[in-house]
Each structure stands twice: as C-alpha cells, then as structure tokens.
C-alpha cells in the first residue's frame, strides 16, 4: 500500500511517517504542497493520501482527484462512511484521508487510526512548545519589570518580585499583565530601561 503524506510542516510529517514505519508500512512518501505537487502525486499513484484537514491545498488536490486521467480509480475522502466514530475522530484530530476506491476498509482503518493518534500527539507537542515559548516570554517581561522596580525604588530582586505578586493578587490579574503594565507606564514616562 503506497501512502503519500502531503504536508508543509517537516515535523508533523516526520512524526506521522515514523509511526507508519513502526507499524510496518514501508512505501511512504512525503510531498510538500508547493509548485507542481499535483503532477508529482499523479506519477506516484498512491493508494492513500493523508493531509491536514485545514491545509489550504485541499481544494487544489480535490480538483485534481476529480479531473485526473492518470489516476485510474476514483479517490474519496474516508473509505467507510458508515464508521461515524472513526470519521469523527479523524475530523477532530484534523486528519483528512483520500483513499482509492476498492481498497478494503480493514486495510485502511489501521492507517487512519494511526494517523489520528499521531496528529493528536503532534498537536500536544505543538501546544507544549507554545506554552514553553510563552513561559519564556513571560519570564523576560517579569524580569524587565523587576529591574524597573529595583532601579526606581531601590528594592532587592526578591522584594521587587513580591511587590509585583501582591499587586497582581490585589487586582486579580496575572503577574505578567501587571509587569507589562508597569513596563508600558515606565516607557511612557521616559523611565528608560
């Protein structure tokens, strides 16, 4: 079974490809959706095409599937329309799968299930990465606000942090928001730093 993954993100495609290889599929190709990707896809004659449900290239791909003479058999999204749970899980995970007509559903289902698990894992990784990035940015903001307080009010670092924290608690805000407000005010007042 030849599986083509159409993906922009190197990471997501790699995560998916690794999973498929571990499961024993070895005819896997990754095609980024740029330039003449449709022509490349036609030459490959895949049995299953996997891609991100939100990919902007899906309109282009579907048009190709509709008019292509090179692909002898029609391809439809999801092979077994009766399996609502499977389709629901795929849609929620953001997986779209185009499968050639006539491929038995028992053969396709494990591929889809794997794609769903891997897409979900990738989304988790992505959100953890985003959280880590946000945490880093927050820490920088708080450090700057602390420096302003230390400089302007002659506080020690721990005192400056305690002041930010108590202000935040009193106002029912996050520390980073109070810190940002302080930085903005300091900038407006020409406080430097």
């Amino acid at each position, binding site marked *: 079974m030849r599986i083509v993954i159409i993906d922009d993100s190197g990471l997501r495609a790699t995560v998916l490809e690794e999973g498929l290889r571990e499961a024993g599929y070895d005819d896997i190709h990754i095609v980024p959706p740029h330039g003449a990707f449709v022509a490349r896809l036609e030459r490959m004659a895949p049995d299953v095409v996997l891609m991100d449900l*939100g*990919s902007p290239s*899906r309109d282009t791909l579907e048009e190709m599937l509709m008019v292509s003479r090179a692909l002898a058999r029609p391809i439809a*999204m999801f092979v077994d329309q009766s399996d609502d749970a499977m389709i*629901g899980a795929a*849609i929620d995970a953001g997986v779209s799968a185009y499968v050639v007509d006539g491929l038995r559903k028992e053969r396709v289902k494990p591929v889809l299930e794997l794609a769903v698990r891997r897409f979900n894992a990738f989304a988790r990784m992505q959100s953890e990465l985003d959280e880590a990035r946000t945490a880093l940015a927050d820490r920088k903001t708080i450090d700057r606000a602390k420096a302003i307080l230390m400089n302007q009010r002659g506080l020690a670092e721990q005192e400056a942090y305690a002041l930010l924290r108590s202000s935040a608690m009193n106002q029912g805000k996050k520390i980073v928001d109070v810190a940002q407000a302080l930085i903005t005010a300091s900038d407006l007042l020409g406080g430097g730093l």
Partner: protein
Amino acid sequence: MTQVLQMAFLPLTDVAVLAVAREQGFAEEEGLAIDLVRTTSWATLRDRLVYGQVQAAQMLAPLAVAVTLGLSQQPAALAAPYKLSVNGNMLVMAPQFAQALEPDLGRRLADPLGTAHDFAAAIGLWRRKPVIGIVHRFSSHAIMVRYWLASAGIDPDRDVVLRVLPPSLTVEAMRAGEIDGFIAGEPWGSAAVNAGLAETVAIGERIWQRGVEKVLAFRQDWLDANPETTDRLLRALARAAAWCDDPAHHEALAELLASPRYVDLPAELIARALSGRIVARQGEAPVDSPDFMLFAREATGFPWRSQALWIYSQLVRWGMVTHDRETAARAAAVFRPDVFRRALADSGLPMPGASMKLEGAVKAPMAVGTHRGGLTLGPDRFFDGRIFDPDQIEDFLREFAMRR
C-alpha cells in the same frame, strides 16, 4: 439562556453580515452567541459543516447544491434559507496579458461581451494557455467565468487552464507566476491590483447584474430540528445586513473586516467593494460600480429557488451532473424560501410572494408583488441578454452553442 452557534467562514469581504451580527450585538439581541471559525479552503469549510463541527457556514451557493447532489465528497443534504450576499467578484489578469484588451478601463468593464472577444484574441497572443485561478470547481466564480468565456467561443476546458486555489492564496500565486490571473471574491482582486500584479478584466456585476454569491448553509436535518434557533439567527442576520448596506457604516465595516480575525488585509482595500469604487489598475482613478456588492436591499437575502436552478443548469451545461427532473428538484430544494418567510414574517421586511422568477428579465428597477410592503427588484440582466425560465431548463440549455 444564550445559545452558542458555531459557523465557519473564509476571509472574504462577504463575511460582512456574519461578522456584524456578532460584533454589533444583533445576534446577542436574539439570545445567540456566534462563534466564527475561520478556515482557509472551501474543502475544510465543507467538511466542518458536513461532519457537524459547525452548525452553519458561509458557503458558495453552487457548493451547497453540489454537496447535496453528491458531487463534492461526502454527500449531505444541505439547506440554504438565506443569501449572505449578491455580486462581489472580479476577474483580474496580469498586466502583460491585459495589454491585448481594451485599454480604457471604463469601456472595458462596461462591455463584457466585447472584452470576452478581446480575451479570445489575447489567448492567441499569449505564449501558452493562460492559467486562470478559480476558488473552487463549484463556485459562482467558476460558473461565471465559464459562462463569460464561452460567450466568445472560448472553451473553458480546452482553451484555458482553470486552476483551483483558495482566495487567500491567489495574490501569492500571482506573485510566484503560478497563475496568470484569477477570479475571486473581494478583497483579493483589489489586493492583486494594488500590488501591481494584475488589472481588472471583468466585474461580476456586469456579467450577471444580480449574481447569487454566498449563502448561509446548514445541514438540512439540523435546520429541521432547530426551527426556533434558525429563525432567531435569520432575524439577527437581516438586521445586520441592513446595517452593512448603509453607506454611513461602510468605513466602520471595512475597519472591522480588516482585523486579523476576519480578512486581515488593509481597510482601504476592503472599502473599495463596499463603496463600489473599484480601482481597476494600480494608480488609476476608481471606476464606479454602485451595485458591486449587495447585502440587504431588494431582499438580497431571499433564496429564490429559480437561482438554485440557474446554478444547477450551469452544472448540467458543463457535464458536472446529468439532468433529470428528480435531480433538478433536489437542487431547487437546497434554497429554502419557506424558512426565510417563517423567520422574517414579523420583521417588517418586504416579502416576495413567489419563490421562483425569471432570472435575467428585469431591465430597470421593477416593483413586484409582495405579501407586505413595497419591494423593488433591481436590474438582473445577464450581459448576453439571455433569460432563464426555471420551468424550461431543457430549452434554456439547448440555446447554448457550447455545452457538454
């Protein structure tokens, strides 16, 4: 209790009515919270609606018909009780290609038939088949450009390459040289003109003066199961649409749509379609096109079944579906004037008495029979003067020299 409705949309100026219903409190007044989900491609929007991730969507009218007829992936009976917009499209081509057309932009846009014939000559002068971007096979844009090209003997499947890509990727595709022009909803045509990548070749409103554009589509089973919510939503949209049509609000509307949550392009570009002042070539004075995009007046929202059938007739014409009475009836049933009437019965809006009309027959503003109030329909002619009688689809199709 406020009910949350999720709706999918694409970044286009004609999301205006949905955006305003949410942002100006019209939905809230009806006890609804609208959650708008931005998507990039029509395939994704279609799947979110068909598989129930959203309850409604801003949809290309022909796509709603195609999904119902099983022509676009998973078949699902869709229902469109409300039109979100009429007109609003523009065909733009690279300046090098447009060199072979009438250079005076006012004259070029006022004479679509002449320009279509010039276009045929321009294809001959071009070094290869021009590649024209369309946003979807089942889009009003594709149907319109096919209709227009064919009028000058240009076979849209043989003499040009129609390439599908989402509206928000059109400008980049022009820049990369992947397409020679495109037809899309605003503000993408204006964005390409503004970047000096293209100039306007035809305006939708001059091809069909009242062309069906986006509809509000639901799954039919959901619509039937939730009449009360549907009615509240339609009332909110009707009031939002009137707000959008008011010239006094155009500046605020352009600012709203310019936000990254919606279209994410400069307000100045979005304002052009709203005010009907179209810059057709970079740096030139705007061309007046007062009916460029309609939201409310002339009962824009009313889903005439004859318009669903016109769309269907064009799908038949190009061999995308085989005509029979049963299929035609299913296509017509996608548009739901009955729901429109039920929802807006007490709204004070003029309500058309019929559900079908001749399309393309109104030459000058015309008062029509209504259940209440005065309704004047604007001119709705096709540029070639044809009239579509929804009861005579076979005869209408026989008149076209080019068909499948």
